[in-house]
């Protein structure tokens, strides 16, 4: 993978962020044909996010993004396809996480799974603490609510015996 693309995907941790950047890329695709032969970063000046603009500039510097509108369009299409192919991890947690927390979690998954993942986050205070994780059909409940339930059930069954 090209370094600028890797740096760009590093910035995408959650599904919301993914949707945001996909919208930006779609917008860029529409603009590609609008102003004839010009660099994409110039065509989209002030219309897209800073991160996307930086990414386009870096790609243009490397010569991977020419002034040809057709080439620009197909390049953006490839990027979109790549982003959509990233595996998703569903994460249910009990609190609203900070950006740093999300970055750390994302990094941890990358290290554990050996590839970049997109976090589909759900905040559910009912799980009290911990997390419920889903990845490619595998489901694990590491929530505090489950532990509490288990504890109560064990105690109840213990008393029922008497």
């Amino acid at each position: 993978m090209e370094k600028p693309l890797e740096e760009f995907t590093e910035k995408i941790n959650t599904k919301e962020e993914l949707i945001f950047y996909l919208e930006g890329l779609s917008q860029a695709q529409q603009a590609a044909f609008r102003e004839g032969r010009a660099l994409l970063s110039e065509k989209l000046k002030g219309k897209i996010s800073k991160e996307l603009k930086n990414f386009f500039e870096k790609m243009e510097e490397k010569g991977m993004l020419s002034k040809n509108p057709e080439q620009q369009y197909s390049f953006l299409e490839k990027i979109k396809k790549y982003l959509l192919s990233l595996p998703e991890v569903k994460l249910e947690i009990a609190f609203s996480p900070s950006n740093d927390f999300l970055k750390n979690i994302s990094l941890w998954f990358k290290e554990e799974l050996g590839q970049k993942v997109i976090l589909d986050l759900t905040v559910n205070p009912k799980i009290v603490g911990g997390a419920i994780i889903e990845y490619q059909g595998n489901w694990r409940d590491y929530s505090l609510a489950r532990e509490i339930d288990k504890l109560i059930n064990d105690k109840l069954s213990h008393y029922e015996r008497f």
Partner: protein
Amino acid sequence: MRGFKDYTEKTGEIGYITGLTHSITWISGLPTLKLEEMIITEHGEIGMVHGLNKKTAEVLMFSVKNLRIGERVAKTNRVFQIPVSQKLLGRIINPLCLPIDGLGPVTGEKRYLNIQREAPGITQRVRVNEPLETGVMIVDLLVPIGYGQRELVIGDAKTGKTAFLLQTITSQAKKGVICIYVAIGKEVAAVKSVEEYLKEMEVFDKTIMVVSTPEDPNTINYLAPFSGMTIAEYFRDQGKKVLVIFDDLTTHAKFYREISLLLKRIPGRASYSGDIFHIHAALLERAGNIKASNNKSSDQKSGSKDNEVSITALPVAETLENDISGYIQTNLMAITDGHIFFDIDNFREGKRPAINAFLSVSRVGNQTKELLDKELASWTRKKMAEYKRLMEIAQFGVELSPRTQKLLDLGKKLEILFSQGIKTIIPRTLQLLLFGLLLSDFWENKPHDVMKVEVNKILEGYHKGPFFEEFLTLLEIENDIKRIKNLKELKGFTKKNIPKVIKILHAHS
């Protein structure tokens, strides 16, 4: 049964419904899902895995109430099973074994059995060697069936197929055979009339009705024969003889065609998917005569019938205007050990039952018959063929010789003997007596109407019960008739017993 949450925790896997058409869903996730495995949705709907693709699984859902795209699904780690119990007797259930007769839940100890089971292997199988009495004279004589046989009942709609099957159930249930009637896509009114018939004949408590109606999802209709067979296997494994009726498999094939088309399987002949033959063959292969697994009486001879258990299957196939060359019809004819053909032309001529004995076949039934039955069948077949040929000549209005007229008269009398009401069950001994009377010229020079009345009188006498003299006389004759070995003896015996028969005929007149 546990719920969605328990199964998710137990298996550690989750899936999502990604596609939905009627009762068929496509699910993603659940990486270790297997074929025929049961799945459960978060709303408690259950389904069975029917196919596995690279990213999705095709699932047949048995309820469509709470299904929606995005719904979470859990696997259960077990093959689809139904709860079977002894208490199913006398109940009307759906293919999921849930009662639909309004008599409350099925009580008693239940065993969960796989809906798809492998058929018994060749080493377990035993030759079909015991006749199964249907109580319908034309079948018992000319197209005999044996326990463990798979005999197709084929014919146009409304030609009396179900009536014949109900007569067979009545005859067999009274002998202690467990009867399972599987109605596939049958109208509720038709099911109700079957129920009423069985209740009237006092055999309902020995019968299980597995019912699916056109209002049910096609997956439920698809499941029905497999449920019926699983229940049959449960009773067979308890050492009982079982008779299972699939009414009808052409409708079943149509439901499977619908499922296959929705699953985007490549349609074959008449748009049926190619595996329909395999599905029906695998189902009917589970029937048969096999060695009893629990060798209760090891001192018995290995060939003894007490060491055998059987499932006799009578699948039904519907035809259109006597066309037996349809795809499903020919498939079923190839799978089964013969067929009983209900001829619409016979029906229109007023023959009841409308069975065409010349186009009916029983491949293994004849081997179960005694010499007397074989002789009688051969004689009858010959006379009926002559009668049929002469009828064609007689319709031109030519003058007929006395011999021809006699043959025509005999043919007509055979038709009278074979004509039987749907509530009349004629046991073998009584069939032999009636034929013996015909052979010994008891009805010689008597008008056909008189013969009809006399035959009915004898049958009525038999069904009157033990408090009537006619019945006791017939019982006496019955005991002796069982010992007869050949046609000559039968002729002699009936001639000797004609005074007794006359006594029966004049009992109340």
